């Protein structure tokens, strides 16, 4: 909702790049890229809020009489919790400037965009693509360059397609057109595929029609939607009260494989806590309260029917 959560995720992406000493290309028109860099979270060496331990799953002592088949099984699914990937970050602390200064970061804020002839109605799109291409070329990130020391260029584009990316006033395109955005993502994918680069783009999806978003999803490899509960009926749902929104994996392209790793019907939820952005599997709680509610409803309905019958 309004790009807040997406911006937090983007900060994690940049912070991971800084920690892994990758090159970073940061583009944003809405906020100053320098400011975004200043806000990236500091790395911490353990997860302070971690509630699970990495030890062997505990086996319950109590004997099961009926569901004995489940007796020795762990109480929750631990398979994906053992993966030790990436680092932990603390959102309350900013990354020390010394770490940032040692990283190769290119900032793009769309201020010095030249009005040249291009297929885009807003020259900013063209300029950004050109700058990314120059960066890839100059720092030898193209696959054909075959660099001796392999590194990755992390491209982070914040709030692409926000009103600042609208067509110019005298453009022939209407403000409703998403042609520029579609074309940009299409070109970007081609560019990133041919280089040692990975791009994360955040889009304020509430400003676009579903059809326009579908086209963007089609041109992307991985698509994630953060659907906030704010202002919707889900906000008052007791089962979801702990969380801020759904974390939907819309698309997970099967790159270099036949099968997609899309988790299928599993639903994920997210919450933005003070120190970290948490993504959890959604487990619906037992339906106790609803059950009593339903009974009440049934009773009152019987009452009502009884009254109708007595007429």
């Amino acid at each position: 909702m309004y790009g807040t959560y997406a911006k937090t995720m983007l900060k994690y992406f940049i912070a991971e790049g800084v920690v892994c000493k990758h090159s970073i290309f940061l583009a944003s028109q809405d906020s100053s890229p320098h400011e975004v860099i200043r806000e990236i979270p500091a790395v911490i060496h353990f997860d302070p809020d971690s509630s699970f331990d990495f030890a062997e799953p505990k086996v319950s002592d109590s004997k099961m009489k009926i569901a004995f088949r489940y007796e020795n099984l762990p109480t929750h699914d631990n398979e994906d919790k053992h993966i030790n990937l990436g680092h932990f970050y603390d959102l309350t602390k900013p990354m020390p400037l010394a770490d940032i200064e040692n990283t190769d970061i290119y900032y793009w804020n769309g201020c010095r965009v030249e009005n040249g002839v291009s297929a885009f109605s807003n020259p900013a799109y063209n300029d950004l693509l050109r700058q990314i291409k120059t960066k890839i070329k100059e720092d030898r990130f193209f696959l054909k360059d075959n660099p001796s020391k392999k590194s990755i260029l992390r491209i982070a584009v914040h709030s692409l397609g926000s009103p600042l990316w609208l067509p110019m006033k005298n453009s022939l395109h209407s403000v409703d057109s998403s042609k520029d955005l579609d074309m940009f993502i299409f070109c970007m994918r081609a560019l990133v595929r041919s280089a040692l680069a990975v791009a994360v783009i955040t889009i304020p999806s509430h400003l676009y029609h579903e059809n326009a978003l579908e086209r963007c999803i089609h041109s992307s490899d991985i698509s994630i939607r953060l659907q906030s509960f704010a202002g919707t009926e889900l906000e008052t749902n007791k089962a979801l009260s702990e969380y801020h929104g759904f974390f939907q994996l819309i698309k997970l392209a099967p790159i270099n494989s036949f099968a997609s790793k899309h988790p299928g019907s599993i639903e994920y939820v997210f919450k933005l806590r003070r120190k970290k952005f948490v993504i959890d599997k959604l487990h619906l709680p037992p339906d106790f309260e609803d059950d009593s509610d339903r009974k009440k409803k049934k009773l009152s309905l019987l009452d009502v029917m009884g009254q109708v019958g007595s007429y």
Partner: protein
Amino acid sequence: MLNTYLQTSPPTKFILIQDCLQEKAHPILNLLKNHHHKLNHDLSYFIFEGNYLKINATLSSQNIKCHNFTSPSSIEALEKDLRTKLKPNSVIILDSLVHLIYLYGLKGTYEMLNNFMKEIKDGQQIIGILHTDLLENCDKVSQCMEHLSSLSIMLDPLVSRVYYTYKKVGGRVFKQIEEYRIEGGQFVTEALKKPDVHKLVQDKINEISPELLTTFKIGLTDTEKESRDSLVLPYLPKDKDATTVEGGEIFYKFDEVDDWDEEDPDDDLDI
């Protein structure tokens, strides 16, 4: 709740009021003006529409500085003027954003406001009025402006409701709908009362009386009910004192277990 969000401290950075001809933004503006006057904030009113002299005369008496933009000027000049008026604890009212959009385009206006927002510090506020009925591409424009605003208010005079979205600095977003009315020039809102579903169903059922659905009489009047209750069926044992019948008498003796069925008195006849 809306009043709380309108009068937060430090003030919300960008308040967007979306109004229309039937319900203008003035009651909300008056509320905000009074609030800022109490706190001794500087109010600057940028006028893009209407008769400047008239508006200036009214607003000057209320201690509000007016700036004439009714004749078109370049966006750079406007931006420069806005910057010079931005002092600590100052409030800038733009009346209205539609005129800016027609003059400088949606992108130009948004860019100008966005740049301006980056410079706003705590204690300063921009209030923009957007006449939704004057816009060609109303939905898109209002979405874009709402994206930039920290508190967006939309008035719907048809149902007397106000829709608002408030974005907290921390990132949480609140979307609410409230009922509004104007009492003695004051803008008053109150939370929507949620009707009890059970009560509504009950009321509806009480409304549908079977008597009204039939062409014949289906119910009983009170007197009829009374006489029905007082009737003693002949096969039931009567009060001995009351019976003065000579000769034969029927004695009905209930079985010990499960003999009498209210719903089907002839159950024991095995028909």
